[in-house]
């Protein structure tokens, strides 16, 4: 099976090893954002997509999650 975001082989949650690493960071990052800004998951994803410091793969994962209502 191919990764949902690139042509590499999927290894976890439908993502390749690289996007999977980014996915884990996106999920983990929400804990800190929720505590910091009392923000919803959806708003969090929107924020990190527009943040220029967000890494390319993390941004791709967040955009994908936004399209899929937050589901991987």
């Amino acid at each position, binding site marked *: 099976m191919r990764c949902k975001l690139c042509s590499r082989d999927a290894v976890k949650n439908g993502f390749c090893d*690289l996007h999977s*690493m*980014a996915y884990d*960071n*996106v999920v*983990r*990052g929400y804990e*800190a*954002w929720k*505590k*910091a*800004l*009392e923000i919803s998951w959806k708003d969090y994803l929107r924020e*990190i997509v527009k*943040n220029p*410091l*967000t*890494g*390319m*793969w*993390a941004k791709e994962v967040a955009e994908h999650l936004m399209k899929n209502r937050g589901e991987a």
Partner: protein
Amino acid sequence: MAPMEKFTLIITEKPDAAQRIAAALDINGNLKKMEDGGVPYYVAHRDKPIVVVPALGHLYTVAEEKHGRSYYPVFSFKWAPRYVAEKGVKHIRSWLETISKLAKGADMYIDACDYDIEGSVIGYTILKYACGNKENVAKRMKYSTLTKEELKKAYDELLPTLDFGLIEAGKTRHEVDWLYGVNLSRALTIAAKDWSGRYATISTGRVQGPTLSFLVAREKAIRSFVPTPYWEVKAQIEIDGRVFEAKYEKEIIKTRREADGVVAACKGEYGIVEDVEVNEFKQMPPTPFDIGALQSEAYSLFGYTPRRTLDIAQRLYLDALISYPRTSSQKLPQSINYNEILEGLSGVSEYRALVRELLAKGELKPNEGKKEDPAHPAIYPTGKLPERPLNDSEMRIWDLIVRRFMAVFGEAAIRRSVKVKIKVNGHAFFLRGRQTLKEGWLRFYAPYMRSEEILLPQINMGQKVRVDRIILEDKFTKPPPRYNPGSLLKEMEKAGIGTKATRADIIQTLYDRKYLRGERMVVTDLGFKVFEILQKYCPTIISVDLTRNLEERMDRIQLHMESRESVILDAIEILKPVVEELKKRETIIGEQLSHAVKKSRLEERIVGSCPVCGKGSLMILYSKRTGKRFIGCTEFFKGSCKASFPLPQKGNVIPSEKACPECGWPMVQVKIKGKRPWTLCFNTDCPSKE
């Protein structure tokens, strides 16, 4: 070549060194420059005639016993003239012929190549192969600067034999690196070529692989990074009519609620000085430059790549302005004669007062570092002044080395730090001041020091101060910084991989192979793919530990504690299963690499995003009809953007990765042979065109 009485043949590493050595040794004032087949050599007279002939760096290299580039594994090798093993170096044939001819007329042989691993191998191979096995009778000239005095001394105090420990270590390094490089690179290149039918050099090596692993690890961390918000609170405090910025006691506030709470509590309040802490501390002078420290400093001050700094330093060395730069020493022995060097430097008006100050001290003692190099001291200026006008970059590096040399003899600087604790409605803020009380060595290194001075007025405990403003700053955590050539070099040094002479070249190779792009190093898709393949099918090859272990063993050869044969045999044992595995997976590896090469070739042509449609990317394309080069938008193929712009048809055009300062459009760099490259804004409506 006219016949002459038997002479001493001196072999140097480079033509400039040959000229300097011959001039230094000649006592008749009758130095003659000769030429044979385009190869220069010098005839000088001392106790007897001396012929000084230069090499051009390495004239011999490791090569396979059997010819051909399309097979692997290869484990049998020999040392051969470079013109036999490499393309584009035909001139080396005449070079070797001249040296061989000269060697026949000599009755004494001296290796005067640079005194380090590479220089020793260069001299040894020439003496052995071009001079007819003269390596065991040859003597060695050891010097660290190309000044007349030192060269004469080195000639008068010749070492009786070559340094065979250094030679064995050097040969082993070349042979092991060749075994790694040729087998792994061929495995990857052949796999890609057999799959796609197109040739592209895909290389890796003993040090290249682990270096790429540092870059890939950093790239992964950056690309998967998710920033986290935090807040900083600052208070603008007014004291004696001046405004200072004090930082909140918690440098990072992790929740907006807490940050807002601090701001609300402190707004409009007065502050009371609760504590004033004054500390004085010594700032010791820097240590003398070794090559790594010089390269890092030159990168951070001038943006020069390690390769560029090394090249400049090499030129300054050949001009006898500085000592031998490829050193890992941080020591300056007294024997180099500090006073004489300083007196020489006082010939430059900018240095005169500083030199006088140092000489007035009486005894000079450098602040040496721990690192040693058995062959050479740290880098220092010779005290000689330039005999030709130096270009800007040479001048900068020379000045940096001169000032660093003076600074290491300076007194410690004494600085004062003041930390004032101000309580504002129960919340503590800190105001910090810094002041230099005694400049010491900072005076010598002034243009290159960035020490911040924040002078605070007299502040007393219990003093009431006005809080003008409370500032709340929204912040985000940042991804780890990208490596740059300077920081990567430091990382390699810290990990103990590569040598002072090879690290800069390895970094350059990663660029040449297109595994990296940009000064802030970005790993390309091709770089990722090569790394992934190595990680998947031969993880030992990218192991930093294994590489470091091999380095350590090669260092032991130098000390006669390990044999060359055992290191080579072990290297082959490591390589054999790796190469077998790569061969077994040739098709899949070839497919993956071919896709990555194709993508990388496309990536190379992308100039930037299209400012016309905002969706596509602008790319360097070729017209199918005319074959002419132009810029077009990738959205053209979807029919949604017709943006296209003409390009110069001559020379090489590559994306410049810079935006036009006038219109903000991406630009291209044009390189035409023999001309300085220039950047070009291709936007026909750019205000710069008016």
